[in-house]
């Protein structure tokens, strides 16, 4: 009995000493900041930062903290803490959100039977819609969003701006380029994507922009210019007075902030 205890005990002591020595001697040197930064990253591995995923990005961040802005998904608090950890100062700015530049309503040319994706439905000829640029509404963007921020209402995708982190995966998924990222504080947005002249748009869709320039004339501060048959808004000049929105007969322009702006997120 005593013998066994002695043998096993001494063996245990020998190996544990060995392990302790080995673990000290052959320890892998790792920057502990990598792990702590990684914990602050969102963990969606969306790839929008340009790296393979959050693990890769954390390693890159420790080497070059100026990349912090590349992650578009971090919450304001996490971003500030990560900045403190990496020793850089985090500026206050707005981030981007996805904006669907189509209100729907284009005439449908034919029934699409088969693979129910926007990409497939836009492959035959110029697609199922009379408007070559409009939203097809089969939800390629919905499937691309890692945050569940887009849902289809009827045939139009609607972005939940609280969930949207502006990663841009939906922008790439849309075969027609209907979705664009806009600054989260954009005051007036455009709900049409067709650069065709008014006559063509009017024939295809009741909701499309016909480039009538009423908005351009209505704007008191000269923030709107029609380019390529679509209004382009200089958000820095816009006072969100709503004159253009009122002037637009086809409801292409929408005022996003009838109520006072919320406080900006940190970036």
């Amino acid at each position, binding site marked *: 009995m005593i013998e066994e205890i002695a043998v096993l005990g001494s063996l245990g002591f020998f190996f544990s000493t060995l392990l302790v020595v080995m673990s000290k001697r052959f320890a892998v040197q790792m920057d502990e900041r990598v792990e702590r930064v990684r914990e602050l990253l969102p963990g969606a591995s969306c790839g929008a930062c340009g790296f393979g995923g959050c693990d890769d990005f954390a390693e890159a961040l420790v080497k070059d903290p100026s990349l912090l802005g590349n992650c578009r998904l971090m919450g304001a608090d996490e971003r500030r803490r990560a900045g403190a950890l990496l020793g850089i100062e985090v500026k206050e700015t707005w981030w981007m959100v996805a904006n669907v530049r189509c209100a729907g309503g284009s005439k449908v040319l034919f029934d699409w039977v088969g693979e129910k994706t926007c990409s497939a439905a836009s*492959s035959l*000829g*110029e697609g199922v819609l009379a408007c070559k640029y409009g939203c097809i509404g089969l939800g390629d963007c919905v499937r691309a969003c890692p945050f569940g921020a887009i849902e289809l209402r009827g045939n139009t995708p609607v972005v939940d701006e609280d969930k949207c982190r502006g990663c841009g995966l939906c922008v790439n998924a849309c075969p027609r380029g209907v979705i664009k990222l806009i600054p989260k504080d954009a005051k007036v947005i455009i709900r049409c994507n067709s650069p065709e002249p008014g006559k063509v748009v009017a024939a295809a869709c009741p909701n499309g922009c016909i480039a009538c320039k009423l908005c351009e004339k209505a704007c008191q501060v000269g923030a709107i210019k029609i380019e390529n048959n679509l209004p382009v808004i200089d958000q820095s000049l816009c006072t969100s007075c709503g004159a253009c929105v009122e002037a637009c007969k086809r409801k292409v322009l929408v005022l996003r902030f009838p109520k006072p702006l919320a406080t900006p997120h940190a970036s």
Partner: protein
Amino acid sequence: MLMKRGFRGGVHPLPNKLTSDKKIEKAKLPSRVVIPLRQHIGAPCDPVVEKGAKVKVGQKIGDSPAAVSAPVHSTISGTVSEISTQLLPTGDRVPAIVIEADDGDEWIETKGLDPEKASREEMISKIRECGLVGMGGAGFPTHVKLNPPKEKRIDTLIINGAECEPYITADHRLMLEEGEKIIEGAKIIAKILGVDNILIGIEDNKPDAIDNMDRLGGESVRVVPLKTRYPQGDERHLIKAILGREVPAGGLPFDVGVVVQNVGTTKAIYEAVTQGIPLVERVVTITGDVKESKNLLVRIGTLFSSLIQECGGPVGNTRKVIAGGPMMGFAQYVDVPVVKTTNCILVFSEERVREEEESPCIRCGRCIEVCPMGLMPTMLVKFTRAKKPEMCLEYNIMSCDECGCCAYVCPSKIPIVHVIREGKKAVRRLKK
């Protein structure tokens, strides 16, 4: 008796060849034709006539300096009323010349060559001038096909009379009624290519055509009966079935010393070379849910609607109008013109069209069994939907011919060909 040959995979859909004993009739002359300036693979033509110009039948109205292209000709005599963008049966929008007919049917003067005396170059340029393209479906310019690169030695000419798609009988009727012209045309092609071995592949569901061509062909042109199996008419499978040679992935029949021509094209080559007649009309099978199915000799540019009316109009509520066969044809949503490659117009009523909801893949492997290219459609669908184009490439997605056998047999009704097309698009983006 010759041995019947086949290829790997394939399916055997109901033949439904309703018009195989209906003689080819001349269709009524259309009062208006829409002639697209691109009806072939390659560069579109530029118009060589202006709005308001008077044109005769066979007059060249569009041409292009590009190497891979074929001119287009007026198919009626009349006045050019507009040059505008029109829809092709394939869904593309291309510029087209619209001609309103006058009372007559005045042809331009045509002059043929004597195939015995004419040189190879003369015949090829005649074929180009007459605007010939492959009439089986793809529309590859014939003069390019007959002028293979110097380093490729061609030893065999195969005339494709397989016509494996259900419903279509245009080539079948041509072989019965214009067999002599096809044989003579084949001899002209053989002379151009400098080959002695001329074979005609015909599926064994057309015994009358096999007998007829066998009788007419004599010693010089041999008929090879083929097993009736879709897609026997795909040139790769035709070569495999007849000669046992396999066209390499991404390659062309040139690479194994073969040129394949469709019977319709062969007949057109005969007419172009010996009489100088441009490609202004072709045989189109109009069938499905119409009052009376017909094989019509149609002027190119005739609108589908007028041909359907000529067959007594649709029966029941039309759900689909398809240009081409039911397996690889294109469903139409507006009135489009017959082009050089339109071999069939199918009208399907609501009762005939089954549209079923897709259900999950049960991994039964039937698509793999039938794929004539030896691909694994089930994996291609999986990888495409998972957005993994690099894996699609590894599974040789680009070798897919989109014949549709996989989608035809799929018990879960997965639109496999649609998905594979998407996968190919993603692969092409990847390569950029």
